[in-house]
């Protein structure tokens, strides 16, 4: 008679068994076959294929991190800086999205939208700019403005999105709003240049993430 599964699993895993169980298992062909089946099952579980993480997941991580960073900073005045992309009132039809994506493709080329966190960092990558804080801010703001324009050109997002996408979108937009809020609080205080620069960099990364998500949406609805 075959032993119970718990004893067979112990045998499979090389765990100690009492003498009675060992005697019962010795020479039992059924039990040997079953232990082999359990080994095969374990190997098959280990060989199950991997899943690819969803494309928007990194954007969600970045948004959450930015939110947590900004929430931990002191809060004060009301926001003055406004986001420039339009409300969600009128989502472009599918055909228009397809047309827009085709039209904008040269602008949205891979070198402009790299991998999620690979936004150009003018502070470290633009030669000759490192010393001049004004130029660095100008570069960050220019890039931010370009992203704004691209988002504006993509139009409003679809009204029907999955809960996960909606959460990510809200997370990113909320993160940007919090950064804007913080930037307004800092005003033009020259002593806060480092903080301002960090916030602008974060803002750019979030906008890049938002742009990628919106582009993915437009493509999904178009095709």
């Amino acid at each position: 008679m075959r032993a119970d599964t718990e004893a067979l699993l112990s045998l499979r895993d090389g765990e100690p068994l009492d003498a009675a169980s060992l005697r019962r298992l010795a020479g039992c062909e059924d039990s040997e076959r079953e232990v082999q089946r359990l080994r095969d099952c374990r190997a098959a579980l280990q060989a199950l294929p991997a899943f690819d993480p969803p494309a928007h997941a990194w954007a969600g991580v970045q948004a959450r991190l930015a939110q947590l960073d900004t929430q931990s900073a002191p809060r004060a005045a009301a926001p003055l800086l406004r986001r420039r992309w339009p409300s969600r009132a009128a989502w472009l039809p599918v055909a228009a999205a397809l047309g827009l994506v085709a039209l904008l493709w040269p602008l949205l080329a891979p070198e402009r939208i790299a991998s999620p966190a690979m936004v150009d960092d003018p502070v470290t990558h633009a030669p000759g700019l490192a010393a001049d804080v004004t130029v660095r801010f100008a570069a960050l703001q220019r890039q931010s403005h370009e992203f704004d324009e691209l988002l504006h050109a993509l139009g409003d997002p679809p009204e029907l999105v999955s809960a996960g996408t909606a959460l990510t979108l809200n997370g990113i937009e909320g993160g940007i709003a919090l950064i804007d809020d913080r930037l307004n609080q800092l005003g033009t205080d020259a002593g806060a240049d480092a903080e301002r620069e960090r916030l602008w960099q974060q803002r750019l990364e979030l906008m890049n993430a938002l742009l990628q998500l919106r582009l993915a949406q437009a493509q999904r609805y178009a095709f």
Partner: protein
Amino acid sequence: MTKPSGGGKRDITPAELAGAMRGDRQAHARLYECFAPGIYTLARRMLAEPALADDVLQETFVDVIRGIGGFRGDASLDTWIRRIAINHCLMHLRSPWHVRGEALPEDLVATHGGSDVQGSAQRQLDLAGALACLPAVSRAVVWLHDVEGYTHREIAGLLGRTPSFSKSQLARAHDRLRGLISDTDGDEACEPILKRS
């Protein structure tokens, strides 16, 4: 510890790790790139619900990036990150909102029984489907033990139960899997899985 499936790329360099610990954003992105596929797979297999797995992936990397500065290297980086993810998975399983095994995972419904899927691919699909149909705790135990390589004592610690509980859950899970998986000679079909839809 057994090397899990879905490990993805694991080749983060010491310099990249040092960068991540200093707060370098490019290094954080690299960390994500290296470990996200494995973590997402772990969460999908343990929770069997894509939306929950999405949450775990995000929560895990938020914790990883915020905590990487304190990583001491007592365990490997992979083990450390997986441990964070497993804790998040278990938190979801413990949540009162988690309803176990109520519905078939969407991807299983969408792909199971496709006439062009045969042989080992079909068996993998059967096994993945059967795993997803296990009760949540059994599924977590079988994955932690047989794939992640945790001992019954470690699993007991994670679940706040005894090693005997872990052993009996594992045995129960294998009995259930056996009933759900279609054998190659077709004597036990996947009907129980399909009927649940």
